[in-house]
């Protein structure tokens, strides 16, 4: 059996679910961010795979480039927030930072 588009989609699905699980289970804020990166990569993989297999043209790859740029931006801001939170609370565990609650 040769590798087809379907294989890539399945792989991306696995990656996506792993990302979601990471996102849902990590207590450390940076761990949560790692999960988000996995999810973004799953989406990117889908985009590139579709683009390669003739669904949509080069747009898929252009989009991927945009996503990578925005993911970098998002990471930077998120980590900056994490650092600020760390300075303030001396912890980065998301379930302990709850001052905005109530």
């Amino acid at each position, binding site marked *: 059996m040769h590798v087809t588009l379907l294989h890539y989609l399945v792989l991306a699905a696995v990656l996506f679910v792993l990302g979601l699980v990471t996102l*849902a289970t990590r207590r450390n804020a940076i761990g949560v961010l790692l999960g988000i990166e996995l999810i973004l990569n799953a989406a990117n993989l889908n985009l590139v795979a579709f683009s390669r297999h003739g669904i949509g043209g080069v747009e898929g790859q252009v989009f991927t480039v945009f996503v990578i740029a925005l993911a970098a931006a998002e990471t930077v801001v998120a980590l900056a927030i994490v650092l600020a939170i760390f300075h303030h609370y001396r912890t980065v565990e998301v*379930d302990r930072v*709850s001052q905005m609650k109530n």
Partner: protein
Amino acid sequence: MEHGSETTRVVEATWLFMIPLFPLLGAAVNAVFGKKLQDRFGKGVVHAVALGAVFSSLAFALAAVWQILAADGPIVLVDRLWTWIAFRWHGVALNVPFQLAADRLTAVMLFVVTFVGSLIHVFSTGYMQDEKPYWRFFAWLNLFMFAMLVLVLGDSFLTMFVGWEGVGLCSYLLISYYYEETDKAAAGMKAFVVNRIGDFAFIIGMGLLLWAVVGTWTEAGQFVAGGPGSAAQPTLLFRDLEALMRDAAFRDAFLAKQVFGIPVVTLVCVLFFVGAAGKSAQLPLYVWLPDAMAGPTPVSALIHAATMVTAGVYMVARLNFLYVHSPVAMTVVATVGALTAVFAATIGFFQTDLKKVLAYSTVSQLGYMFVGVGVGAFSAGVFHLMTHAFFKACLFLGSGSIIYAMHHRQDLRDMGGLRKVLPATYLTFLASTIAIAGIPGTSGFFSKDEILWRAFDNGNTLVPGWVLWAIAATAALFTAFYMTRLLLMTFFGEPRADEHTLHHAHEHKRMTIPLYVLAFLALVGGFVGVPAALGGSNRFEHFLAPVFAAGQHLTWLSAANDGHGSGLHSHAGEYVLMAFAVVLGLAGIYAAWRLYGRRYMAPEQEAATFGAGLHRVLANKYFVDEGYWRFVVNPLLATTRFLARFDKLVIDGVVNGVGFVTKLVAWINGAIDKVFVDGAVNGMADATLAIGRRVRRVETGQVQAYVVGIMGGLSVLVVVFYLVAR
């Protein structure tokens, strides 16, 4: 009638977008740079920007009104801005342009909104001058003007909805203007949440209408595209829908459509009316409006009296081409309106807060407008909308002037004898009071009388006309009573304020000028619609007739639309009703004068005079708010807490073990306690509350639990979809 046959010409007006654009720009400038401007150049710059924006908008609006007035025959100005939604799915193409349009109905609204809005902006420069976040107030006020103008100019349901939500947002922002005070922030939230109920119905109605235009439902409730009475393409443009409804073949098939045995048109109209009831504070969704008085007084005048709350009336009038085909929906509108009118008027009796009286009065007058549009007298409803905007804005601004002079006190018990201290306010307040009481010659007389007569004379609603008339006339009597009471308690008798306050009380020039203008209009504004019975020609109704042409050929609407042509009998009847209404108004004034004219009555004395039970019920607004808390809000909160608890139990239950379960039992006990046997044992309730509070702190706000919830819910939905919906 000749209007029905006239066709409305479409005139391109690419400058129409300027009307809402200026307030938007003003809002943007003040929102972004306002603080800087205010700090560096003073408050003058801030209000210069805001006033410049509204006056530019007013100029363009007047140009539009002028063009519509001067045109030969009815015209509609159209400005197509951009294609907003272009959607194609299985051969169905939905195209919604972002399009503005101004016909004669819009012209009335444009005039009211921009004119009254400008005056209130001027007033605000005086009233708000001591506020620190001056810029914030004007930014939101301009934003409100923008949203309101989009609402009235919008040519499709969606464009209108943008404005509809926009005014809701601005209302929230402005009610919570003093957000440092918890109760004021809560009032804003209440307004937002209650409005949301109405908006939800609006969206459902819009969706249902969209589907109903392109297809039909089987008896089992299955949607089938196409079929008789279905347009090839869906549309959300008012004029397209109206044109479709004008086509007899389409209309007859459309009216026959049913969902689960209910005619679609009735369902759609009732849903839209629920939306209108939320925005226009009708039963049972009126509760937010009295609380909305927490906002600054100019806001109450502009948003919660003159413009935003009338949006619901405007919408029903705008959709007259649908409503005229549903007697049930019309009956609902008129009945709810009439009940609200009398219900709110009674609450106004014993309120001790100056602005609360006016708020309930607004609710009551809005009820009147709905009676008007509900009995098929759309132009009468809109006429009352306009005159109400004048006199109620004047009353609110007058109350603002009083509150300003009294150092932000608004309790009637602290007033009295202000006639000499605030002469301009007194004169204008008096003028507006006689207008709202319906003294002949004032604007309120003409518009209220028109509605009362039409309500009596209508054969359109399932409720007999005289019943509606009787309820509305009672409300008129009550209105005259409580307004006179308000006037007497504020301006007459011995001053009850302390020396210091009275000594410093003064009027501000920028506040009195708008008052005079509005009072003038409140007195003479009604002369645009003098009914035929009084020798006038009711120009207002003729002006709006093309907009409301849809129902004129319908036999069951003819009584309302052909009234002034139907001969002597009708005139005689109108005279009698008119005289009766005037007598009722005078009776209300006289009763209030007898009771309050010579002496001030404190609430305790009122209770003694009117009976303690009645006073208690009315002064506490029929305990409606308490009822909502007890039967809606608290059970909801309890359910929420219960669900949160349940959630946590499933997730964490095993680990936390016995102590956890014990707490759970205690908590559920507490919840049941709270809902079912509230207050039975206070100590127990307190203990429960304490436990509940502690437990709740552990439970909520775990974002990651939400993620899991979303994942799981999504999976379940997809599985269900695959298994069931295939």
